[in-house]
């Protein structure tokens, strides 16, 4: 049971949601954009997340969009992950998503919630980062469209009260050769030790990683090294792991040393798959 109370507002437009958020903040309240709500419910039960006003954005039509139009894939932030997976529009994203939580939970967890939530793995962002996706954001001064790579630093860097409305991916990224894998300490369900998503564009491999650090990341320097074919894959990987952001996570899932060990092997698999022009793996 959630040990505190909150007001509950159903909203039908992004503008209305942002205005309400702003108004509640001006009253000294703690509003919370709510789509799937799994974090508010589970972490709220433990008093690790608090809100005194919930703004339910599921009724905003553009937050539920899932369509390919004018060579762009539009995905609403309130879409359940299972819907994106079922749609098969973006196979790399669908396959990466298929490893998040479990099938039933993916009917509730949303794309925007996975990206903006407190649980730091945020694995749905990995394909979006390497596919140069854009974010549509509603704020108090209006709407903006920004490259996800430019606003993502561990999590989307949104201003107070801004609402992530949609993600947009150009269609020429959707069918590129890809590799995605989630390595867990054990079993088939649960948080990752490491998740890697990679794709190959114009002969170059792009990749993003979750689980190694307490935030997901894409590193262009790391990609440069991995694409330097003057060295063997093993040498490139040894050089690449020297450039990992810090700190390296160490927890019950695995020590930092073990994570690096698993990462090296995973990167080798990714290079072999994509340099051999193989398509999907997991």
């Amino acid at each position, binding site marked *: *049971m*959630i040990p*505190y*109370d*909150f*007001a*509950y507002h159903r909203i039908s437009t992004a503008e209305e949601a942002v205005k309400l958020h702003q108004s509640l903040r001006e009253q000294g309240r703690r509003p919370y954009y*709510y789509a*799937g*709500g*799994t974090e508010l*419910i*589970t972490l*709220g*039960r433990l008093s690790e997340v608090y809100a005194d006003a*919930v703004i*339910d954005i*599921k009724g905003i039509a553009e937050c539920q969009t899932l369509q390919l139009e004018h060579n762009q894939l539009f995905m609403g932030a309130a879409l359940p992950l*299972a819907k994106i997976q079922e749609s098969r529009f973006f196979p790399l994203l669908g396959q990466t998503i*298929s490893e998040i*939580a*479990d*099938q*039933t*939970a993916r*009917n*509730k967890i949303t794309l925007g919630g996975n990206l903006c939530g407190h649980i730091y793995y945020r694995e749905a962002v990995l394909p979006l980062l390497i596919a140069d996706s854009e974010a549509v954001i509603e704020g108090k001064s209006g709407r903006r469209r920004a490259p996800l790579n430019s606003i993502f630093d561990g999590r989307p860097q949104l201003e107070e009260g801004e609402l992530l409305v949609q993600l947009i991916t150009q269609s020429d990224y959707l069918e590129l050769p890809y590799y995605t894998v989630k390595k867990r300490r054990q079993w*088939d*369900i649960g948080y990752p030790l490491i998740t890697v998503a990679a794709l190959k564009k114009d002969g170059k491999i792009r990749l993003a990683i979750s689980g190694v650090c307490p935030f997901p990341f894409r590193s262009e320097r790391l990609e440069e090294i991995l694409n330097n074919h003057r060295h063997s894959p093993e040498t490139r990987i040894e050089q690449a792991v020297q450039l990992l952001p810090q700190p390296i996570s160490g927890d019950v899932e695995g020590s930092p040393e073990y994570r690096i060990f698993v990462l090296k092997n995973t990167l080798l698999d990714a290079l072999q798959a994509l340099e051999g022009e193989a398509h999907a793996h997991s």
Partner: protein
Amino acid sequence: MHIAEITLDINGEARSVTVRNADTLLYVIRDKLGLTGAKPGCLNGDCGACTIDVDGNPMKACLMLAVEAEGATITTVEGLKYTSLQAQFVDKFAFQCGYCTPGFIMNAQALINKNPHATDMVITEWLESNICRCTGYKEIEEAVKTALAVARTALQEQLK
């Protein structure tokens, strides 16, 4: 206290109930509506014992607020009328203590309704959403696969 008077469409009935906005759907259907088929387990979205059907999709009732369920069509295990799947659970002895059974049945019934041609991989993916601490997974899988086969046969009969 923030409370709301809501009406839930549950098992074909309109049930009006007063809830805290912060109440989970699981709490409301069990403690306020007396539908105790959905079981509280982990209360964290992990075990699947509280699975119900919301608008045709399996949903963990511990991961949903009652207020957000207004307007949705909800089915709990009490709303199933001895389906082929339930018969197969009996026939295959697909339970031991039975605590996880309603959750497994609601999840698998949604799979049968949505995708009677589900592959083994899809069946496994769906059943991974539920935990049986008695570890009776083999019998559960057999019951679900048999019920899927029955559903496919029924579909073929309809097409004749």
